[in-house]
């Protein structure tokens, strides 16, 4: 299921490039660990960065119609179930940098949007974004992409709803309630072709500049997993009877942090080694959704007990979703 033809039919082009550089020019054997590692690294680096630049540029041309300000207007005053559904879906498609989490949080609170709904948005946003989704499709096919999106939306929905049960209002810093927001303004955007092109170029620079290191680390981790990860370890993560595989993957992922895009090569390597889908998805989600930098930013508006609860709720939700996917995939594929 993983070996479906990718978005780019030119997949082999990158493989040949890696063959040339590593095996022919580098003189390494395809049988050696180092050869396999380097081959994966070169192939994925070339493939992912070329795709990233194309994807971000095209997305930039269409200039996203959504902004957190607009999302806020859509969500405010809706019934809770509708508000949460909107928050989760819009969170997935609205681009926003995690450095904007604090103003976004305050803006939502100020509009009277329930905290649980705000949490759903904050969970969905880093896990699912258009760049990660298109890249996933190109590398692993649409089936796995669909599964990842469904898993992410579920975790965001359930996670936010669970947070609400604990009345997180008591952990919100006092000053947040006192802030008076000014009239929301939407600066005008240039929609001419030239303006779109310039915006798209600046998006490529900005996003690639922000995430390239995470992507390289992800590719490196994937390459190591590919070449050096002992098959017996991989098997301990694959065993269908091994219920601990998913919690292990999630707990491993909590302290690790990467952009959702950076996780993809690692997931790619795990799947080719035969790690179960639910386990792989769980690791991807915990690496992308739970991050120390994001938590430090959120600490400005939420006190420590609230943050610890947030991490626990997310961890549990991801484990449950991972188990469900493993059960479903083993059930359908005996």
């Amino acid at each position, binding site marked *: 299921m993983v070996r479906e033809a990718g978005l780019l039919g030119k997949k082999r082009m990158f493989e040949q490039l890696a063959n040339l550089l590593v095996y022919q020019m580098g003189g390494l054997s395809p049988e050696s660990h180092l050869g396999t590692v380097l081959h994966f690294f070169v192939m994925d680096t070339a493939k992912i960065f070329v795709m990233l630049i194309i994807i971000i540029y095209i997305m930039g041309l269409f200039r996203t119609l959504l*902004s*957190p*300000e607009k999302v*806020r207007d859509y969500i405010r005053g809706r019934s809770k179930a509708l508000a949460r559904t909107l928050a989760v879906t819009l969170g997935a498609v609205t681009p*926003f*940098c995690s*450095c*904007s989490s*604090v*103003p*976004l949080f*305050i*803006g939502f609170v*100020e509009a009277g949007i329930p905290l649980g709904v705000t949490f759903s948005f904050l969970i969905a946003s880093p896990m699912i974004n258009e760049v990660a989704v298109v890249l996933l499709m190109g590398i692993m096919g649409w089936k796995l992409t669909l599964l990842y999106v469904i898993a992410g939306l579920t975790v965001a929905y359930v996670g936010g709803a669970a947070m609400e049960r604990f009345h997180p209002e008591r952990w919100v810093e006092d*000053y947040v309630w*006192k*802030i*008076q*927001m*000014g*009239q*929301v*303004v*939407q*600066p005008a955007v*240039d929609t001419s072709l030239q303006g779109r092109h*310039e*915006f798209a170029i*600046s*998006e490529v620079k*900005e996003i690639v500049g*922000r995430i390239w290191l995470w992507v390289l680390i992800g590719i490196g981790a994937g390459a190591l997993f590919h070449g050096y990860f002992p098959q017996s370890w991989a098997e301990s993560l694959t065993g269908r009877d091994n219920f601990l595989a998913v919690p292990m993957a999630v707990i491993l992922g909590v302290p690790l942090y990467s952009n959702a895009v950076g996780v993809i090569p690692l997931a790619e390597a795990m799947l080719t080694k035969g790690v179960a889908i639910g386990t792989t998805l769980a690791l991807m989600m915990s690496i992308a959704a739970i991050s120390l930098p994001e938590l430090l*930013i959120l600490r*400005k508006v939420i006190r420590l007990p609230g943050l610890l609860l947030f991490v626990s709720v997310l961890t549990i939700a991801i484990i449950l979703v991972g188990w469900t996917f493993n059960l479903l995939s083993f059930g359908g594929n005996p």
Partner: protein
Amino acid sequence: MKYIKVLGSGCANCKATFARIEKVAQEKGVEITLEKVEDMAQIMSYGIMSTPGVVIDGEVVHAGGVPEQKKIEAWL
């Protein structure tokens, strides 16, 4: 003389915005007063939810992401 404020909680993009405006102003020889606003209550009072934001003479002209060089040149 323009009064420009960069709104942002001190993130990397906010610093980049500040530096870029400073650079463009110098290149064009335009005199500006550039100020960083990092206080959250003040930032929110301008009605933006994505940072960095840019305020020129009291008017919000930009929110979210580092503004393009051309855009800054147009402001000045």
